[in-house]
Structures are given as structure tokens and as C-alpha cells.
């Protein structure tokens, strides 16, 4: 394989591995704060037990996020030197602000959050939790700002072939940023909700009926029931925004080869790039016109308008269907779970098993969603400004291949260890919640 392909696979592998962990920690930070505040307000020890259990998951996920994130900051230089040379004047400050306003905040106060129990008063510990949650969200904000700028760049001019910033307001608030940020934050909320629900259901099914387990499960199910339908709406709005600014991406997502009206909504097909058509197509007449233009005969741009300049169709098309499919499942599980909690006060065994199976559903949907938007931007790295091929470095294919193998081995090993550790923590959850060194000072101290 050539160096460009290998460099892309390597970066994709790294960024895919990385996003798994922030996707958990962004929302889990706020859930931990919720547990802590409930404890402060009610004095009920179950909330503190839930905190003690989930802060360990947070620490583990955070460590994996940190080490894979550091790897990424280096790969900008090792794999894509052309990126910073061309758009460094915009990307640089955004990345610098992420490190300065988010990274240090999270990393420093995480120590107090994890080990500060007996050393600081309760309110300092609560504040540390707020700052860590705020830090993870700020981190997401800056990264989503940069990614959105790469998708729909604005506020710059080209001088001697190099991007120069002209309007920072426009750079931060690009047309796609509010949609992408909201979509991602809710995705994190859902990932976290299904993780907590899955692990708590696992504990419940094993006979661990501690009040903390029920409290965490209830919190997670309510989160899922609220966020999943909202995400469907936000995702739709994000899609309409993409149609306006990156129509080629939407054409690939929908598998539309030809521009026209009365466009059907394709449920399944196998896009064939060679014949520029779909095989085995199953579709709903007028569906896409209705969704994308809100009228039955609305004209939707097809891939024929972007020949030679559109992304590879099949991966974007399938990734989109996986994301939507998992999203629909999430809505079903969330609403069903909430209904049972409301009517019966508990979940039936079958549904609990279902939640265990859905433990990592958020990961699948988040990864699929990022594949849609990142592959969907190709051949551009920064839309209309820089192609991916132009940014690749001079490192020979052999070197990239050998480090790629190293990273892949490491990531598979760590992922297996992570999932195994999660379920082992769950299996001895009641012990974890009551470790002697982990008792907090009273909130008033």
C-alpha cells in the first residue's frame, strides 16, 4: 500500500481508538457531578456509592483518552505536516486553546477528584468535580470548533498559498459548528447513558441489588429516554445543515447518484462506484425529498454534480445506516425502559439483558457517525482549501506500516483490557463502593 493510504489508516485507527474514551468522559463528568450533588442535597449514601464506582470508570477511561490523545497531537506532525503548514494559523490557536483551557484543568483536578477525598473539604471536592466536567466539555468544544472549521471553513484568506485568519468570530462559529457540537455532546450523553445502564443492569442481573445500582440504572434510563429522541431531531437538523454546505456528503450518505426531484429514501442498497448506481435497492418513494426538502417532489443534488470530487460512496452510505439504526434502537430502549420505570418501578429481566447487550451501543453509533462526516469530507482535508493527499508527509510507507502494526496491536490489547476491567469492576462493584480509603469528608467540613 502507498504511504498516503497507510497514513490515513493509521490516523483513522488512532482517532477511532481515542474518541471511544472522551465520548464516555465528557458526559460521565456531568453524571458524576449529578451523583455528588444528589449526595450533598439528600445525604443518601447510595449516591456517594454510585459516585465511587463510576469515578473509577472515569479515571480508567480518562487515562486511555489522555495517552491516545497525546499520540494524536504528535501524529499531526509525523503524518500530516502539510496540514499545519497550510492551515496552522487557524488550527494552531484552536489547539493551543484546547490545551490551555481544558487539558490542564482536567488533568490537575482529576487528581483531587480521585485521591482528594480525605485531604480536601467536601466543597473543594465538589468544585474539583465541576472543573473536571467543565474541562472535558471545553476540550470537546475546541476540537469540534476545529473539526467544523475543516468541514465548513470561514473567516480566513489565502496569502501566498497559506491560510491567514481574518475573523476569529467567524472561525469559531462556522456554519456547521453549533449543529456538530450539539450532536456530539448528545452522542456522549447517550454513550454514557447506555454504558451506565448496561453495567448497572449487568450488576442487577448478577444479584447485586444495592441501592446505588438501582439509582445509577434509573438515572441512565431517564437520560437515554430524554436524549435519544432529542438526538434524532438534532441529527436531522445537522443533516439539513450538511445538505446546505456539503451537498456531496449528503448525496453519498443517501446513495443518490442522480440529481432530481421525487427522490426516494433508500433504506438499503449496495452502492457501486464502477457503474455509478445502486444494486439491491430498497426504498421509500419520495422519502428523501420529503426529509431533505420537506416537500414530496423537492430536488435533491446527486453525486453526478460532483463527479471526481465526492467521497467514496459505500463507506459513507453504510456508516450512516449503522448510525441511524443504532439510534433507532436507542430510542426504543430508552422509551421502553422509562415506561417500565414509570408504570412498574423496575425493569423486566428481558429488558435488563437487552440493556447489557446495548452497553457499548454508543461507541458503535459515535464511530459510525464520525466515519460519515470524516470520510464524507474526502477528498478534502479542509473543504475547498487542502486535500488529504497534499497534507501527507514524506515518511516512507515501510515506516508507516511498521508503526501502524505496533499501534493496532497496542489498541486491541488495551481495548480488551478495558472492557474486561469494566466488567470485573462491575462484578465486585459492592466492594469498590466501600473501599476504606475512599470515604469522603462530610460535605460541611
Amino acid at each position, binding site marked *: 500500500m502507498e504511504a498516503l493510504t497507510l497514513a490515513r489508516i493509521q490516523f483513522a485507527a488512532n482517532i477511532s481508538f481515542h474518541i471511544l474514551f472522551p465520548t464516555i468522559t465528557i458526559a460521565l463528568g456531568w453524571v458524576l457531578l449529578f451523583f455528588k450533588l444528589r449526595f450533598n442535597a439528600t445525604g443518601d449514601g447510595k449516591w456517594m456509592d454510585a459516585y465511587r464506582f463510576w469515578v*473509577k470508570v472515569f479515571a480508567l477511561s480518562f*487515562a*486511555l483518552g*489522555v*495517552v*491516545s*490523545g*497525546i*499520540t494524536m*497531537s*504528535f501524529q*499531526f*506532525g*509525523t503524518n500530516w*505536516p502539510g496540514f*499545519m*503548514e497550510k492551515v*496552522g*494559523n487557524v488550527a*494552531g*490557536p484552536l*489547539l*493551543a*486553546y484546547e490545551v*490551555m*483551557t481544558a*487539558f*490542564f484543568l482536567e*488533568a*490537575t*483536578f482529576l*487528581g*483531587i477528584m*480521585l*485521591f*482528594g477525598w480525605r*485531604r*480536601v473539604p467536601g466543597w473543594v471536592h465538589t468544585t474539583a468535580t465541576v472543573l473536571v466536567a467543565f474541562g472535558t466539555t471545553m476540550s470537546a468544544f475546541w476540537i469540534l470548533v476545529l473539526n467544523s472549521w475543516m468541514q465548513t471553513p470561514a473567516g480566513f484568506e489565502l496569502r501566498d498559498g*497559506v491560510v*491567514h*485568519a481574518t475573523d*476569529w468570530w467567524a472561525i469559531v462559529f462556522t456554519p456547521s459548528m453549533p449543529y456538530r457540537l450539539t450532536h456530539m455532546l448528545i452522542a456522549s450523553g447517550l454513550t454514557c447513558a447506555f454504558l451506565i445502564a448496561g453495567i448497572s443492569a449487568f450488576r442487577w442481573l448478577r444479584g447485586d441489588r444495592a441501592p446505588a445500582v438501582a439509582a445509577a440504572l434509573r438515572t441512565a434510563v431517564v437520560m437515554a429516554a430524554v436524549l435519544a429522541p432529542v438526538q434524532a431531531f438534532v441529527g436531522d437538523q445537522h443533516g439539513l445543515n450538511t445538505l446546505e454546505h456539503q451537498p456531496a456528503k449528503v448525496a453519498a450518505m443517501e446513495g443518490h447518484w442522480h440529481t432530481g426531484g421525487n427522490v426516494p429514501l433508500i433504506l438499503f442498497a449496495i452502492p457501486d462506484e464502477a457503474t455509478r448506481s445502486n444494486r439491491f435497492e430498497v426504498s421509500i418513494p419520495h422519502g428523501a425529498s420529503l426529509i431533505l426538502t420537506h416537500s414530496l417532489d423537492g430536488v435533491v443534488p446527486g453525486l453526478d454534480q460532483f463527479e471526481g470530487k465526492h467521497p467514496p460512496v459505500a463507506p459513507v452510505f453504510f456508516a450512516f445506516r449503522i448510525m441511524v439504526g443504532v439510534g433507532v434502537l436507542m430510542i426504543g430502549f430508552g422509551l421502553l425502559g422509562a415506561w417500565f420505570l414509570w408504570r412498574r418501578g423496575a425493569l423486566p429481566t428481558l429488558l435488563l439483558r437487552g440493556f447489557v447487550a446495548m452497553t457499548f451501543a454508543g461507541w458503535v453509533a459515535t464511530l459510525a457517525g464520525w466515519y460519515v462526516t470524516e470520510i464524507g469530507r474526502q477528498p478534502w482535508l479542509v473543504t475547498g482549501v487542502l486535500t488529504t493527499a497534499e497534507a501527507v*508527509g*514524506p*515518511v516512507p510507507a515501510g*515506516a508507516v506500516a511498521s*508503526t501502524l502494526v*505496533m*499501534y493496532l496491536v*497496542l489498541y486491541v490489547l*488495551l481495548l480488551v*483490557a478495558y472492557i474486561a*476491567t469494566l466488567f*470485573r*469492576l462491575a462484578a465486585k462493584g459492592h466492594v*469498590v463502593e466501600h*473501599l*476504606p*480509603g*475512599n470515604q469522603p469528608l462530610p460535605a460541611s467540613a
Partner: protein
Amino acid sequence: MTPFLPADDLALVFAALMAISVLAYVVLDGFDLGVGLLMPAVPEERDRDRMVASIGPFWDANETWLVLGVGLLLVAFPTAHGMVLTALYLPVALMLAGLILRGVAFEFRAKAATPVHKRRWDHAFIGGSALAALTQGWMLGRYVLGFAEGFGALLFAALSALGVAAAYAFIGACWLIWRTEGDLQKRAVAWARRTLWVVAAGIVGVSVATPLASARIMARWFEMPNLLLLAPLPLATFALIAGLAALLRHMPLPGDALRRLPFWVAVGLFCLSFAGLAWSFFPYIVPERLTLFQAASAPESLTIILVGAAFVLPVILAYTVLAWRVFGGKAMDLRYD
């Protein structure tokens, strides 16, 4: 944003910020990695747990200085960033693998199901620390000689790898003198005494090799009046080494007096060595190839970062001090799992 500093001054400010970040990283993660390097000398699980507990609350934030240093290189000197990182592609990848293994081992070793698994993550912790320390030393050696090829240059890089690993073990041992007690502390004193001499040899080695390799560096140090003006640098280094060697012979002192001093002397030695290298290479950012003035980004972009940094860096320093105060004193038996 309209720049309020001339472009060359901005480049200087950012070079200084980057130098501070790299120095902070080398000192802070230096002692973390050093503790990892020393772990094989400690067979008892309880002592190993204490060693890990002594750095547990700090390592995340310590490693962030690396991200800031590389980030500033990336942001302020993008051309140099591409040049340096592609030249060091393989050692960077290995260092990252080392940092990944070391970082996750903190969590996994504490949450391990069986003692056998815990030992395995101990190996990952030790191996990861060693890999990161050695590759960082290797990269320093390659960088110092301007990425020169040939057997001599590679031998120098290999010696530099060992030297940096020894320096990290040294500052790690000084950290443990401060943060542990009893038998473990006594052993830390012994490690510090042994590694101090390797560090001294390393400093002398680099100080001799760099002027010999470059006539420009030779002139910077040995022409008048530089020779006199710079004399305090080597003299202070010598005084710190001799003084610390004398102190370590008597440690631990009654009442654990001066327990912090070896660590801060080690920090002083790191700073002096760093200052020496900085003087040798200024104004080059890629030795003998690219100056920091040639490599700097557009002034508008640097200005907006500088404004942010002026507000944020003092805050970072303040809460770093807070965290150090919260976790001052001897390492306790932190329950990590």
C-alpha cells in the same frame, strides 16, 4: 487580532514559552518516568504500590506539559514541527507506545484481577517508562547533532539515551527521598547517590561533544567575553553536584530534615543543563538548519494565542501549586482500584 509585538519578538516569546514547557515536562514527567525505571529494584508489592501512589495524583498533569510543548512547536513553528517530527518518526512512535503503556498501567495494575495480572501491568509500567525515557534521550542526541548520520552520531544518540534515562532515575530517586519513608527512603538515597555520578558524566560528555561537533557552538562558549560571562553556569553545576553528593552521604537526616532538598537540587541541575543547551543552539530551532525567526507562524495567530496564554498560564500555575499542596507530604497507601 492586531499584533502588538514585532514579529521577531513574538517568535522569541513563543520560543521561551516552548522552552519553559519542555523544561517543565522533562522535570515533572522526568521524576514520574524515573520512578518507573527504579521499580525493578523493588520486589515488594507494598513498596511498589507506594512508589506508584507517590506519583499517582500528578502524572496526568505532568504529561500535559509535553502536549503543551509539542503543541507550541506545532502552533508557533509549524515548519520546524514537521521537520523535527518526520526526522524522528520512529523514535516518536516508540516513545508514544511507551507513554501509552506507562499511562494505562497506573489504572490497570490497581484494578488487576490476580497478582499475576498485576505483575504483568508492573512490567508494562516499567517497560513503558524505560521505552519513553530511552527514546526521549535518543531524540535529544539526534537533535543536538542536527540529525547527523553516521556511526559516531548514532553512538552519541545511544549514549544520550542512557544519559537521559539515568537523569530521570536520578530525579525519580530524589522524589522518592522526599515522598517516602523507612526502608524505601533509604534505598532511594542509595539510588540517588549512584545515578548522580552517571548524570555528572553525562553533563560533562554533552558539554565536551557539542563544542567539538560545531565550531559555532565552540565560539559561543569559549570566545571572550562569553567565557567569563558564562563561567557561573558550569561552576554552579559543579557546586550543586558536589554539594548534593556530600548531602546524600548523610541522608536520611534525623527528623527527616532537608528531605525536599535533593529533589530541588535535581531540578536545579536540570535547569542548568537545559540553559546550557539553549545557549548553544539559540537562535536555531532545528540545529544548523532553521532559526526560530524563519520558522515562526503569522503574527496575528501568535498574538491571539499569547493573549490567551497571558490569562491562562498564571491560572494553570496557581492550581498546579494548589494540587501540590493538597498532595504534599509522604505518599500514603492510596487505594487506586
